[in-house]
């Protein structure tokens, strides 16, 4: 039995952060119903990356919304709104990511919803919180990254600000959102009271950097300083980084410099000791880089791995997916629509009671589940 079986979630969220939380709740067994406007639905349905679609919806939408249902409703239409209010009365959790003020206008803000269903867990995602000078700014991933300082951590010392090349603010925020909703639901089981749960892209992406901010607060406010070449972490000393070999790339994590010098037979590296690892990071990394470039990745791995020196080959997606280390995980699954449309995608990363959690239901067609949802929840 999946742990959240029986829990009903109404998702008024669009795009990524909120729906990613809904996806996780669905993975774990909840019944997640997207409430979508009849014209177009979740805007993510048309927001394609690489211009790729499947059965009329963007692949990105498919990725984020598999294993959910769709209920089309026009919240400006009193009859539809009344049905939605009745769904809310039956729901355990509802989530939205409208800009401040929108739910108040519709009459589905926290106070109104609480009057309908005092036990509900009411979740909200914003870009920057509900107060302050940024509250009305678009809550978009790259913009949150830009404001949060995150772009100063990746890339090399003389690279321009380097964003994380995936939607990190959305993803970490959605992850925190699911945590908050679940914790509040557990409290409701214990105490019977509902809750308001709020997260924002900015608070979440600052939390992602909590180690770095804590260091920044203690070190007198020095700005993070990236390594000159092969940087992997602004605050970690050599050898931490990525290095070119004769035929590819290798990553080295923490490890004693003297030991590394012995293992890879690099006399020049013996000029440095642990006290230099951070202070003289660029020089040391240069010495290591020059040396590692002389042999193949496989040759270095054959030396370093048996000695349990922390290292790894650098793969792209193609090479990873072909590797036995990937295949052993059973990490992908095929999801299907009733009309036969198939999409291969990932599964939930959490295993429960030794089982991987799969679900082969694809993202819903807009409004496809209206009759069933009304039958189950409004007529019963």
């Amino acid at each position, binding site marked *: 039995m999946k742990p959240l079986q029986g829990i009903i979630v109404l998702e008024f969220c669009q795009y990524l952060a909120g729906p990613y939380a809904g996806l996780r709740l669905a993975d774990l067994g909840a019944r997640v119903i997207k409430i979508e406007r009849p014209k177009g639905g979740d805007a993510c349905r048309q927001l394609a990356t690489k211009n790729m679609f499947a059965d009329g919806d963007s692949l990105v939408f498919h990725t984020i919304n598999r294993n959910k249902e769709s209920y089309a409703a026009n919240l400006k239409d009193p009859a539809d709104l009344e049905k939605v209010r009745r769904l809310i009365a039956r729901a355990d959790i509802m989530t939205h990511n409208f800009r401040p003020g929108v739910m108040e206008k519709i009459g589905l803000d926290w106070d109104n919803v609480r009057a309908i269903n005092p036990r509900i867990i009411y979740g909200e995602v914003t870009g920057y919180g509900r107060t302050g000078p940024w509250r009305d700014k678009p809550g978009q991933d790259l913009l949150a990254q830009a404001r949060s300082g995150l772009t100063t951590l990746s890339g090399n010392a003389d690279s321009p600000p380097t964003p994380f090349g995936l939607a*990190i603010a959305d993803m970490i925020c959605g992850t925190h959102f699911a945590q908050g909703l679940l914790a509040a639901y557990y409290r409701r089981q214990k105490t019977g009271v509902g809750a308001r749960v709020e997260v924002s892209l900015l*608070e979440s992406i600052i939390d992602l950097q909590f180690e770095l901010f804590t260091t920044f607060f203690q070190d007198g406010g020095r700005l993070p300083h990236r390594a000159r070449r092969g940087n992997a972490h602004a605050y970690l000393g050599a050898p931490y980084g990525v290095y*070119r070999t004769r035929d590819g790339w290798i990553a080295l994590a923490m490890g004693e410099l003297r030991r590394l010098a012995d293992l890879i037979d690099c006399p020049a590296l013996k000029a440095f000791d642990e006290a230099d690892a951070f202070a003289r990071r660029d020089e040391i990394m240069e010495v290591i880089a020059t040396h590692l470039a002389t042999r193949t990745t496989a040759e270095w791995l054959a030396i370093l791995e048996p000695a349990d020196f922390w290292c790894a080959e650098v793969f792209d997606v193609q090479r990873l997916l072909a590797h*036995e280390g990937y295949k052993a995980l059973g990490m992908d699954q095929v999801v299907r629509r009733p009309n036969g449309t198939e999409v291969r995608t990932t*599964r939930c990363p959490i295993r429960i009671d030794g089982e991987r959690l799969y679900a082969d239901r694809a993202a819903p067609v807009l409004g496809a589940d209206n009759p069933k949802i009304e039958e189950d929840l409004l007529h019963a």
Partner: protein
Amino acid sequence: MKRPLEGITVVDFSQFLSGPSASLRMADLGARVIKIERPGTGDICRSLYVSDVRVDGESTVFHAINRNKESYVADLKNPADAARVWKLVEKADIVMHNFRPGVMQRLGFDYASVRARNPRVLYGAITGYGREGPWKDKPGQDLLVQALSGLTTYSGNADDGPVPMGVAVVDIFAGAHLVQGLLACLVRREQAGRGGLVEVSMLESILEFQFEPLTLFWQDGGQPIVRTKTNNAHPLLGAPYGVYTTSDGHLALAMGSIPQLGELLDCPKLLEFPDPASWFQQRDEIKAILAEHLATNTTAHWLSRLEPADIWCAEVLNYRQLVAHEGFTCLDMVQTVSTARGRQIRTTRCPIRLDETILKSPRGAPEIGQHNAAIDAEFGLDRAPGDPSPSEPQTSLTP
């Protein structure tokens, strides 16, 4: 306000970041977290210094990750210590660790053994690469998993080579997923009365983080994922998506219409791209035009033209600029915690708000073994004469 996990006890055997970041979140949400640490060194993270900053002789990151927890020192290979830890485990709601596969079996605290003595327990385990396959015994370290997982191919520009993400994202996602799984099982336990096993691996967690490029990759017949030549911010997105250098700083531009940008920025060359499909297909060319144009004036100048038109853009800030900005200070994101020695440390707070309340806790990270005596007394963990608490200075034990 009642914190949601009040009354929950977590016995945490984990070290470094992945596991401890999970128990930190549970502590934020109200759980009592007891770190089980080995005599001498304790959590190895205590001596993992970043840059050259130390607090009370320990690493700053240890303090960030372990605030609001208790520390109980025990040598799990010593039968008397193990017996005491068993008494804690028997009363725990959650037991968790992040050892490599097999270690907890050897120590005797594997799931089957723990469940036998505590049937309602929720048992959480984080591994590097799962329990099966050729990588299962490899070190589960953040950068190494980034390297193997393909994650270094998204950031930076096309010719940059691998660019790791400069935060321990793998550790953090694995820890966050563990919390999700444990909370879901806590809900189930409340409903159905049974415990459960929750497992995550760093590799699976960071692969799920890549669900968008992976799903596209499977659909498009395995086309390589290509970063743009310059100004890359996401390899799957078209122009203008990226960060651009201005005459006095940097500007981020998210999705937007290229001809509209051409008009707002007075950049006629951009009007030559009316077809939205071209914004992806010719993104290198468009980005080059934008980069050259945006370098000619200040960030404030460009923002004054773009923001009123609701174009998605933002100034790029560094840490100093951010923490001085009202957009940051209004969040009340910083809290001060006190260490056992009375030192004040500024760190961040839990990012989740509950019932319009911010969750802070003034308690700092514990000293190694700080809570042994109190926990011994509370749980009735008697010590025989001549059986010193391992929290006392160790001379004979090797770490």
